[in-house]
């Protein structure tokens, strides 16, 4: 285990650690190389992640594997329609003496060491719960028992149920914008990986599967410093800055940039979104990707590689197109990347 907080850790060592992290997770989660790469980027960019994907494709396993490889505490909570913010913070019960007790919840109790907090089906929870979660994500702190609890190493992962619409509360634009990335986790397409997942008993017991990761590969306490070091080390030239600014302009005003999609009125497609915060996240993710690729400069390929995952969930469409959102935003991103000149 490496102590990355120490000044002696070089960027190359850091990269080696990141690769080891990816490899460790990749051993237990098969067929998800892209998701693993994106989660690694978000870990080294210290961003919160929205996961989307079908049920049973391995989102929880992926996060538990990362939790194990990162060290620190892992906590999971299910979003339900009757959940209130207090349920997230307080544990209430009747003690042996027959009197009610209120104690910190599991999340609060692990505040000092919580590295991964997985909120499952976030859109089943009420907006009050969203509000608390947003504060937790933005400030890494909550107030309970008349004091502020700090979560210094926290990274929030939320899963959005995209199938059901009844009794769900869709995430407001502001909440979606707080998430660093929206990572799709799909069932593996590789035939061999599929066969393994179905027939290999190793994948049937998640606890035993996760035992395959012997212990933490890196120290989660050093990640903040490591992230800052990565961001400072990667050079962003004027040309790539111009490129990102042009991308921003093109995604907000696609018609003016000459981007056209069949059957879509480009003048009214994009209502808003693609905030400056979003663009900052895009560059942040791009820098981590450049560093993972062994480069000390940000190139358009890095920006392009993380563009959809960092930008798609922050673009807000005209309600007419909202039902076809996934395909339209994907096509819009692809068209913008194919149109904006590089360098």
């Amino acid at each position: 285990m490496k102590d990355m907080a120490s000044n002696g850790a070089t960027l190359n060592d850091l990269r080696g650690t990141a690769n080891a992290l990816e490899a460790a997770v990749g051993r237990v989660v098969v067929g998800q190389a892209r998701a693993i790469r994106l989660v690694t980027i978000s870990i080294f960019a210290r961003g919160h992640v929205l996961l989307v994907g079908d049920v049973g494709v391995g989102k929880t396993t992926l996060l538990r594997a990362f939790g194990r490889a990162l060290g620190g505490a892992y906590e999971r909570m299910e979003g339900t329609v009757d959940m209130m913010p207090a349920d997230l913070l307080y544990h209430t019960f009747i003690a042996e003496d027959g009197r009610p007790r209120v104690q910190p919840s599991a999340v609060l109790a692990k505040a000092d060491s919580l590295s991964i907090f997985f909120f499952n089906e976030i859109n089943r929870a009420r907006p009050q719960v969203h509000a608390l979660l947003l504060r937790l994500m933005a400030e890494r702190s909550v107030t309970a028992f008349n004091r502020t609890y700090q979560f210094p190493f926290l990274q929030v992962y939320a899963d959005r149920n995209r199938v059901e619409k009844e009794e769900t509360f869709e995430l407001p634009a502001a909440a979606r914008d707080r998430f660093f990335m929206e990572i799709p986790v799909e069932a593996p397409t590789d035939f061999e990986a599929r066969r393994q997942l179905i027939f290999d008993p190793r994948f049937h017991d998640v606890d035993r599967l996760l035992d395959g990761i012997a212990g933490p590969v890196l120290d989660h306490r050093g990640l903040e410093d490591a992230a800052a070091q990565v961001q400072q080390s990667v050079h962003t030239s004027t040309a790539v800055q111009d490129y990102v600014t042009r991308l921003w302009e093109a995604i907000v005003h696609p018609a003016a940039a000459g981007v056209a999609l069949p059957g879509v009125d480009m003048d009214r497609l994009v209502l808003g979104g693609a905030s400056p915060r979003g663009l900052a996240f895009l560059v942040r993710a791009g820098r981590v990707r450049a560093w993972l690729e062994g480069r000390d400069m940000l190139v358009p390929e890095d920006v392009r590689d993380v563009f959809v995952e960092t930008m798609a969930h922050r673009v807000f469409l005209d309600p007419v197109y909202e039902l076809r959102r996934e395909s339209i935003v994907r096509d819009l991103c692809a068209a913008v990347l194919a149109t904006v000149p590089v360098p």
Partner: protein
Amino acid sequence: MAARILPIAATLTVLLLGAAQAQPAGDASPDVVVRAERDIGFFTGDLIRADVILTVPAGATLDRASLPVPGPVAYWLDLRDITVVRHGRTITLHLIYQNFYVALDARRMQMPGFPVGLLIGGTAQAVDVPPWTIGVSPLREVAPPVQEDPKAYLQPDRPAGYLDTGRWWTVTGGLAVAALLALLPLAYHRAWGPFRRRPARDFAAAVRHLRRLGARGETETGYLEALLILHRALDGAAGRRVLADDMPAFLNRRPVFTPARAGLEAFFQASRQAFFGSAPAKARQVLPFKDLQVLGRSLAAAERGRP
């Protein structure tokens, strides 16, 4: 003598004046005259033309509804046509009848008269066109001299008349040329033949641009401009933006450029250094301007050779 003549003259004068007063005014009553082109020598099927000339008072109008309608008039006579022409007070009815009377001897037949309605000063007045007669004649058989050979009765065919087609050939030729000329805009519109859309030669244009850069290509800004020129040509050739990582896919899609793979790799490396590494000097070491021009020319040559 004079005394005997005077009372007679006076009496005659009074009688004459009285007679003059008793006569109606010549203007007031319409006058009808029938003029036929001839009144004899009509055979079966002949057209009989006749003009009925009505002299009517000023202001009188003809009631056209009262005119006879073309069609059968009698079992032997059809009215083919009637035309009305008016000149001042004279109204002329041009009538064309057709005679179907099969006469066995020469005889006179009476053409029936008919009334014509006039409107004079708001009152209707009928004027009768009087009947007139025509002479119809029988058809006599032809009795040519007797011939031994029946074919001798036949006359030789009349030679066909000569039609001068020269002018029509000229017109046809002119129209054919016009049709061919009209094909040109159509061919342009449909991109046929010489107007077939050819893929743009992006690299050829890039080479011309690079040549125009000239000595400026050796300076830093000129070198960056040259890199951009080649970038845009690559984008044009691929139909999308080509980044360094896209090069293998681009070469797979456009194998004609595969021989320039090493040059393209150097180009992307240099471009990356120049634009994203902010180190144009290093880039110019990797791929000097001269080599950039050479790469452009080889890509343009490959482009010409494409299918």
